[in-house]
């Protein structure tokens, strides 16, 4: 009952007119960036971080939550009507959704995606509501060595799971860790790796790194390798919305997608790619008409889209309870918390219940706003796709400039933006993942603090790092995650040999 009571308090915050306004702004912005290429939720929130200085934390996070969920809704629109999945979680939606649109059933595909997103987003948020405080309670018993082990698990997971090779994943992670060491050491006050530059004493700003790697890196990459194929938007007019048959075929995949998406999204580096792929496979197996898959099966849109949204709610579990980001967007949200001098974790539930419960309640409200914004108004969002590409990228660069120059009107920040933007370009050309670098940058300094704290308490005895069952378990899981690709390759090989035999 306590949770329900707290949630009601959250609704009292989220339903204040000013917060409803910010939720609407977030949902509109989120849907727009989900539809537009080149700009995602992580970058949008990062560019808006300076605004947090002027807006109350509750309002800012309610807006950010709207952007997070809105981008998923917008992403499904481009996947279905353009066959262009903006991010990896929308790839499976695009397969069946675009075929449905080509067959004149785009409206039905958009409707099942939007309602499925609403259903799964609500289920995911409900699970977050009840699960987050319980996990946060658990975190009270964590010592510094346990936190350190958890961060090692998080590092290993993002480096192994994101990207095509472990070496490249770890390289990105270590580059982020290296950037995180620049500046004044918080424990001894000594300057480190500043190369004689006073501007670097405060460290490298997370916003500069994110804007450079995402916005600048992508602009350079897309400019140099522009696709000559004109985007084909499948028309919406004439198609019917969901029929009774469509509803009958969609509701189970929505629920199954939510059940698959939320737990996987809650894991460190679980992300949205694996649950959407899994949901698609499950729906194809369970479908009464598997032959329709690949030709526009509605279950293939309903399931993955639900899994995608539920996973997004799941991503908030480790972030809000343990302060552990598992995606680039979660890392930006963590940076936003830090901007307010807040550290997500168990204490935040006790010290700032209005903020956290207001944020959770706003996810429910945001889902309703998004359903209203996306179903009847989808025609308007599609018009965003008519904006010529040169203007989209020109605008992105100007807003990147606002984000970086607006931090502290520092020329050094602009120089870093150019340098790191070139690194972002090289990362795209040679297939290095970006997210591990961001997570290394934001989590590295915290991991260092926990490591030094654990070793200070143990008088320099390194065995303390495996001294508690929690720390030892996390480290064992980290080792298993490290070897996961090898085990998977062997397993696949064995299965293939068996099937040949």
């Amino acid at each position, binding site marked *: 009952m306590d949770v329900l009571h707290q949630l009601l308090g959250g609704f009292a915050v989220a339903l204040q007119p000013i917060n409803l306004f910010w939720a609407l702004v977030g949902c509109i912005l989120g849907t727009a960036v989900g539809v537009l290429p080149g700009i995602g939720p992580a970058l949008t929130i990062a560019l808006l971080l300076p605004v947090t*200085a002027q807006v109350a934390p509750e309002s800012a996070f309610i807006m950010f939550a709207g952007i997070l969920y809105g981008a998923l809704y917008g992403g499904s629109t481009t996947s279905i009507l353009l066959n262009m999945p903006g991010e990896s979680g929308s790839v499976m939606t695009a397969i069946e959704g675009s075929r449905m649109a080509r067959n004149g059933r785009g409206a039905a595909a958009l409707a099942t995606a939007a309602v499925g997103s609403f259903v799964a987003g609500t289920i995911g948020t409900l699970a977050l509501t009840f699960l987050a405080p319980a996990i946060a309670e658990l975190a009270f018993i964590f010592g510094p060595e346990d936190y350190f082990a958890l961060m090692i698990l998080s590092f290993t997971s993002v480096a192994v799971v994101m990207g095509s090779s472990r*070496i490249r994943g770890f390289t990105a992670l270590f580059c982020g860790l290296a950037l995180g*060491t620049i500046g004044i050491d918080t424990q001894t006050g000594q300057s480190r*790796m500043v190369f004689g530059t006073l501007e670097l004493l405060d460290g490298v700003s997370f916003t500069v790194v994110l804007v450079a790697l995402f916005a600048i890196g992508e602009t350079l990459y897309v400019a140099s390798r522009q696709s000559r194929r004109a985007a084909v938007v499948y028309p919406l007019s004439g198609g019917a919305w969901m029929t009774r048959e469509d509803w009958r075929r969609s509701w189970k995949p929505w629920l199954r997608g939510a059940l698959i998406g939320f737990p996987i999204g809650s894991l460190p580096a679980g992300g949205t790619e694996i649950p959407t792929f899994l949901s698609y496979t499950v729906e194809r197996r369970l479908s009464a008409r598997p032959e329709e898959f690949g030709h526009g099966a509605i279950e293939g849109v309903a399931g993955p889209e639900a899994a995608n949204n539920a996973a997004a709610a799941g991503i908030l579990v480790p972030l809000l309870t343990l302060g552990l980001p598992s995606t680039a967007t979660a890392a930006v949200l963590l940076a936003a918390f830090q901007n307010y001098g807040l550290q997500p974790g168990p204490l935040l539930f006790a010290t700032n219940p209005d903020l956290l419960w207001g944020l959770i309640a706003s996810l429910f409200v945001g889902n309703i706003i998004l359903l209203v914004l996306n179903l009847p108004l989808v025609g308007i969002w599609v018009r965003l796709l008519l904006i010529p590409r040169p203007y989209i990228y*020109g605008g992105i660069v100007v807003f990147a400039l606002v984000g970086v120059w607006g931090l502290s009107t520092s020329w050094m920040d602009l120089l870093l933006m150019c340098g790191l933007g070139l690194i972002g370009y090289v990362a795209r050309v040679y297939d290095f993942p970006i997210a591990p670098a961001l997570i290394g940058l934001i989590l590295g300094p915290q991991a260092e603090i926990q490591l030094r704290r654990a070793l200070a308490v143990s008088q320099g005895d390194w065995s303390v790092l495996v001294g508690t069952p929690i720390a030892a378990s996390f480290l064992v899981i980290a080792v298993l995650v490290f070897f996961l690709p090898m085990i998977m390759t062997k397993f696949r090989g064995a299965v293939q040999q068996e099937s040949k035999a």
Partner: protein
Amino acid sequence: MPSSDRRKDKAVAARPWWLGAAVFAMGLLWLHGAQGIASTTNFIGLGPAAMIRMVGAGLAILGMLLILQALRGVPFMPQEEEGADAAAPPSRPAFLLALAGIAVPLATIRMLGFPLTAIFAFALVTHAFGSRRTLLDLAIGAVIGAASWYGFSLLGIELGPFLPVAGW
């Protein structure tokens, strides 16, 4: 030949060993930087240089592994991005124009201010993406630049004087 195969062939032929060398050099730089950090005698456990040393060693090892990957012919394939053709040959003029748009603020922003800089950056990037309507691009850039400067200053984000060279 499908475009993914073409991409793979090109990627194998490239052998970008220099990537590993750059990461290795960064590792050495961090290891060298750790030498310059004075160790505190009264600190129990790890000093401020330890993390720098660990990260430097990690980067150096990863750099060597990347060099090995490149020399063994492991493909380094361009990523699929919305609106980009990963298999297409890169256009150097477009890349340089976009880079100019991104770098132009370094030269102009302190003297000409944010709105004028935004005009140049916007127009250079739109030209990198194939637009040839220079006047229209400059006009749109002016509207976006001035509106951003004014709008964000209302939100409390300081973007510097409007035109510093004129003292505005």
